[in-house]
């Protein structure tokens, strides 16, 4: 469905009933892989919500003292302890990667091969930096401060279990995202979307819409970090 045909369809709530009752595909003007990415992200949201809500339930219901995140995640800089410094830097790095991803998607729409690939690569670099800092944080907690999933020196034992599960699951998402960003950057730079070169595993040619779908995933990872930052680190 092209832009003009799509422009003629009813919009808003009328459009909602029109799309769902049309006896045709529901998501008009949207390629299937993009619709499926949205559905996947919705299911992923359920997983993250389950984890975060169970964390809240455990943290609120425990009678033991919960470790103070701004002390646990504090960083010593030139002799003074700055609360959450590393986490703040990680947040800014991930938000920057979201910004570069949005710009990569924009250049993808415009079929601007080089700039799109460069911004995809920048996004991957930011993502890798984030994972690196997370590895540093985990090392600090596990090796130097003795935090484990079953105990820690600061207070309630459940702290470690939830910390490692939540940040670990998010870090896995970032890592997978970085791998795919690098693959997409290579494909884009090589001009696969312009020449119609087929993918490694598939017989189907791809196009620049793949960048947009990649972007949805990456922004979702950033979105989840916003929630984790608020509920785990700031609480």
């Amino acid at each position, binding site marked *: 469905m092209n832009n003009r045909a799509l422009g003629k369809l009813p919009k808003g709530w009328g459009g909602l009933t029109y799309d769902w009752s049309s006896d045709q595909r529901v998501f008009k003007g949207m390629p299937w892989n993009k619709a499926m990415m949205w559905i996947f992200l919705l299911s992923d949201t359920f997983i993250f919500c389950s984890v975060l809500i169970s964390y809240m339930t455990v943290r609120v219901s425990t009678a033991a003292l919960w470790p103070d995140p701004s002390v646990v995640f504090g960083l010593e800089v030139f002799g003074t302890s700055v609360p959450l410094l590393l986490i703040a830097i990680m947040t800014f790095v991930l938000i920057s990667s979201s910004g570069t991803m*949005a710009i990569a998607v924009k250049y993808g729409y415009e079929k601007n091969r080089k700039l799109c690939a460069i911004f995809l690569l920048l996004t991957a670099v930011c993502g890798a930096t984030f994972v690196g800092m997370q590895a540093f944080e985990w090392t600090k907690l596990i090796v130097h401060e003795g935090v484990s999933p079953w105990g820690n020196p600061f207070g309630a034992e459940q702290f470690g279990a939830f910390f490692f599960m939540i940040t670990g699951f998010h870090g896995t998402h970032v890592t997978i995202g970085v791998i795919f960003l690098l693959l997409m950057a290579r494909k884009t730079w090589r001009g696969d979307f312009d020449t119609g070169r087929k993918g490694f595993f598939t017989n189907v040619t791809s196009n620049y819409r793949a960048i947009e779908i990649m972007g949805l995933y990456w922004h979702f990872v950033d979105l989840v970090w916003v929630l984790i930052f608020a509920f785990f680190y700031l609480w």
Partner: protein
Amino acid sequence: MPQYKTQTHKIGIYLWIWALLFVFSFFSYMVDYLNFEGLLRWTLILVFMVSKAALIVTVFMHLFWERYAIVNVLLWPMTLMVLLLGIMAADSIYTLSTRLIYFVAGS
């Protein structure tokens, strides 16, 4: 090959949102740095969190420009998640009260 809808926007809107996300993140970090406590802390944290999430979803993920067919697919399950959050919050407060009564006060 069918033609799909594409939206191009000026780069300015992405840079603006990027800057706003930086500002909101800085503010939410300041909430912790300046040691705000109690209701004020929670209000600020949630306001900044929801603003950031809304900016990412509407502009970066282009949901603002999508048809309601997909917007509603995402909106209502999320509403249910918020409902679950509320239920579990109430439940965990109740659990805490029983633990305080029987484990801490009773021991």
